[in-house]
């Protein structure tokens, strides 16, 4: 079963390159790393600022997500981290990285890790737009 090398819900900036290096391994022929980054536009509106809030169970939910992906795919290692709090445009909100022996599974496993995290992780994105309006994403 895969080494789970990082599971983190944190208010510190995420470094995708560092998280990608965490899953590197002499046995790993392929590494795929996803970064979900904060955009300056959403549905055509200019985003001025953005904050993520988490439920207290977020850490343990993300551990469960990592375990489930580790058990579903033949991975060497995986790492996943989600940012909390205020976050600057262009910064990474979610970083997910996997390594595999051969490349076949790497894209599918990383995509599944991202999808399951987005489905299960109890975090909420609050956007403030340049026109002063705001929204809780997915809850309009």
């Amino acid at each position, binding site marked *: 079963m895969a080494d789970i090398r990082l599971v983190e819900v944190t208010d510190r900036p995420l470094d995708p390159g560092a998280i990608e290096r965490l899953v590197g391994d002499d046995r790993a022929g392929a590494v795929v790393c996803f970064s*979900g980054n904060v955009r300056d536009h959403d549905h055509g509106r200019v985003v001025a600022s953005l904050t993520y809030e988490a*439920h207290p169970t977020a850490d343990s939910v993300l551990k469960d997500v990592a375990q489930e992906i580790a058990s579903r795919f033949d991975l060497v290692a995986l790492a996943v981290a989600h940012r909390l709090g205020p976050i600057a445009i262009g910064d990474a909100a979610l970083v997910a990285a996997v390594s595999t022996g051969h490349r076949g599974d790497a894209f599918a496993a990383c995509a599944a890790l991202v999808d399951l*995290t*987005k*489905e299960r992780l109890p975090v909420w994105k609050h956007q403030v737009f340049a026109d002063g309006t705001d929204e*809780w994403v997915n*809850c309009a």
Partner: protein
Amino acid sequence: MPATVEVHLFAAARAAVGHSVLEVGPGGLADILGRLEADYPDFSAVRPRCSFLLDGTAVHDEGVPVGAGSRVDVLPPFSGG
């Protein structure tokens, strides 16, 4: 033993109600939520999209009884990533 239920509200649910935590009387979950909607009309728009935890466990039936001393978490749809 407290005589009330603690309702913890997150994100859009907290914004609609204006509080992070409310103390409410016990009852069925649907009944408690109905009282919240009556007291905080903005909550009505959010409630249908929320899921709920009762003492940390996901609720599948809103008829579940919520006794004094219990905790309810109100979770709007997640929007991570």
